[in-house]
């Protein structure tokens, strides 16, 4: 008797190397073949885009053509440009030097006999200012550079509304005067300050592109205030490098825009300039709109990304598919990485399409609201679009990682939504009674800002496009109007850190636990 040995069947296909991209492709097919997930992502794109119309429903205090045109600065940003200007023309290069011996404030205390507001000393504000300025012309929004003393912020050099550099500290008085100097060379203006008029310190150098040859140089005063406040500066030792002509006094922005018209008084070797208003960018809640409003629908997209991201893992556990997946890719870390790449990529593309539609659409609709819209350069718009895409991608990966850790869909989705939305909600909606506006107490602005620094909600900063200016009086900055405590990419990095930490824990648990 002989036994026949039969060789078992062997596949003729040569074993290929297991490629990471094959794994990613497999995961992509898993996503693509679940109709509900694909529909959710498409709905997310539609919802984010459609929300632009709701978010741009901003009503201005004035409406339509009745609004006075908001002056804009050289960079296109909305500005306030109201002050009293004692000026004379300067053609070509030149230098202005002055000594300031006092800066005082006055407040209105009712009407005088002649109908003019009656002024009394007091009310000098931190950003009341007087000094020297070189300005292209006397129309609002034109380019300028100025050296000034302020109420309580020392000597500053400011130019073109948004730039502000500190000089000497301390306040000005007759015993401690301040010397200021501006030197114009072409379109470059350099500012110096001095305590004694002999030792000068460079404060800053401003470049005003395209500055005309003939400009206006002189003295100015302004006091930012909603009420009747003015600031008065007393100037001595006025030195002009060009043949001096008569001083002309102009209320820049028109007399009708200031509570008290400014004035210029010439005395024994002194010039006294009084004015109200401010030279500054518009900033703060309600004053200026952020293009970020166009992306307010991101929250809708985030819910979609979180739900699909969580289910991308938890559905495997629910159906037992995870055992097949792990049999196909026994290296568990790679499976997790492939899943993260696939769902992150899908969410990224979803966010990219939605934001690329919403941002230009929002720019058009928000520009028509009557509230000034802060101009956004194309590069920043690109950051908003890519940042939104990345925000969705990281949220989906965070949900995937938490889903791997918890292995339960409902708990995962709830956990990720809670850590992303609740900090934002608490930062937005403080526990104050209705109609009370900004509270000085409560979860203070500082406390609310911490919520947007350390939680995954910090990621929303990546969409912010609107700057804060410390020199703008009375501006309040809250996330409702697009101000965040962290810089765009710093806030995004916080969210990434959360996702990375969750992924590391997920990887550890996935390798350690039975599937």
């Amino acid at each position, binding site marked *: 008797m002989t036994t026949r040995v039969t060789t078992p069947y062997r596949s003729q296909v040569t074993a290929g190397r297991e490629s990471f991209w094959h794994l990613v492709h497999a995961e992509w097919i898993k996503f693509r073949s679940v109709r509900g997930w694909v529909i959710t992502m498409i709905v997310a794109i539609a919802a984010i885009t459609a929300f632009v119309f709701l978010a741009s429903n901003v*009503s201005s205090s004035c409406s339509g053509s009745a609004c006075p045109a908001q002056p804009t600065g050289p960079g296109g940003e909305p500005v306030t440009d109201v002050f009293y200007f004692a000026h004379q023309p300067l053609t070509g290069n030149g230098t202005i030097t002055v000594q300031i011996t006092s800066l005082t404030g006055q407040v209105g205390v009712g009407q005088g006999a002649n109908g003019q507001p009656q002024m009394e000393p007091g009310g000098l504000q931190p950003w009341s200012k007087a000094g020297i300025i070189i300005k292209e012309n006397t129309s609002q929004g034109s380019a300028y550079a100025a050296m000034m003393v302020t109420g309580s912020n020392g000597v500053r050099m400011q130019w073109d509304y948004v730039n502000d550099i500190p000089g000497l500290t301390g306040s000005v008085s007759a015993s401690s005067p301040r010397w200021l100097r501006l030197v114009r060379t072409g379109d470059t203006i350099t500012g110096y300050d001095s305590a004694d008029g002999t030792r000068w310190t460079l404060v800053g150098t401003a470049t005003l592109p395209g500055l005309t040859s003939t400009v206006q140089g002189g003295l100015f005063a302004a006091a930012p205030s909603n009420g009747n406040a003015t600031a008065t500066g007393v100037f001595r030792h006025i030195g002009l490098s060009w043949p001096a002509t008569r001083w002309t006094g102009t209320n820049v922005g028109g007399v009708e825009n200031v509570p008290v018209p400014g004035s210029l008084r010439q005395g024994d070797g002194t010039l006294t300039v009084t004015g109200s208003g401010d030279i500054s960018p518009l900033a703060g809640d309600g004053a200026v709109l952020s293009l970020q409003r166009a992306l307010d629908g991101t*929250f809708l997209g985030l819910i979609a990304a979180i739900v699909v991201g969580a289910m991308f893992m938890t559905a495997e556990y629910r159906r037992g598919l995870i055992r097949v997946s792990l049999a196909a890719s026994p290296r568990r870390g790679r499976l997790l990485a492939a899943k993260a790449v696939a769902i992150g990529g899908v969410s990224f593309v979803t966010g990219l399409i939605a934001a690329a539609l919403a941002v230009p659409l929002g720019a058009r609709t928000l520009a028509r609201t009557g509230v000034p819209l802060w101009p956004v350069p194309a590069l920043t718009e690109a950051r908003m679009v890519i940042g939104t895409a990345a925000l969705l991608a990281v949220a989906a990966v965070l949900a995937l990682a938490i889903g791997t850790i918890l292995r339960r869909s409902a708990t995962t*989705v709830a956990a990720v939504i*809670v850590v992303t*939305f609740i900090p934002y909600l608490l930062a937005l*909606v403080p526990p104050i*009674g*209705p109609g009370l506006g900004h509270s*000085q*107490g409560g979860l203070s602005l500082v406390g609310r800002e911490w919520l947007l620094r350390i939680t995954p909600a910090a990621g929303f900063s990546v969409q912010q496009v609107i700057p804060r200016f410390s020199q703008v009086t009375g501006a309040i900055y809250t996330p409702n109007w697009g101000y965040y405590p962290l810089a765009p990419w710093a806030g995004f990095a916080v969210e990434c850190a959360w996702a990375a930490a969750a992924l590391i824990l997920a990887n550890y648990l996935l390798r350690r636990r039975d599937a």
Partner: protein
Amino acid sequence: MSLATRVSPSSHSVVQALHAAVQALRAQWTKVRTVAGPAWLLAGVVALTVAVGAAADSAARCSSATCGLDPAKVTFTGIYLGQAVAAVAGVLAIGNEYSTGMIKLSLTAVPRRLMLLSAKAAVLAAPVLTASALAVAGSVLAGWLTLPGRGFTPAHGYASLTAGADIRAAAGTVVYLMLIALLSLGVAAAVRDSAAAIGLVLGLLYLSPILASFVSDATLARRLQQIGPLSAGLDVQATIGVKSLPLTPWQGLGVVALWTAGALLLGALALKLRDA
């Protein structure tokens, strides 16, 4: 003469129906009692609500009579978080049956589907109500211990933290949490998927106040606050500025009750009309 002939047929069927209902309730209660999940979730409701409330209490400052802070809202800040856990409990009450396929067995045992859903609602509502009462009691206690030291004193216009409005705020909050759990049950019965259901519920809860704060058109924002279950429902917590609320406190809770009724109705219809 046997017992059966003495009892009239109609009352007999009532007894039978009652018996079936009690059986269904007992069955559902056994399910809730014998797995660890619900107990942990309810403990989570209490722990998170009290912890976040206490943190908000200690972060609050009222420095003057015009600080405008609502002590009840500060005390119950934890509800923002606690309701998410209550929603998970509500979703899982029926979502787990769908994900494990247990629903088929449940419907075989209790073929009357509405009775099954009612039994589920009952065994969800009672424990959530208990947990909610504990959570609110803990928050109130934390508030009493902390808030007077944070400037919430009679000098700043907070005469007492036990006025009628405060009791209404506490009672309303207890009911609010239960309504949110039932709302989640209804949504989960309608969509039959835990992840999608919790996404929908939390989206509905959290998005409406966020979106309302972005809409600067006052009329539209007020409308959104009246419709959104979270912003309307939490009106029940207001103890100051009640007159300028978008809705009266009880009306606000009524809005949540309407949402819950709608969701349960939707869930009941889906359960009744569809194959499981």
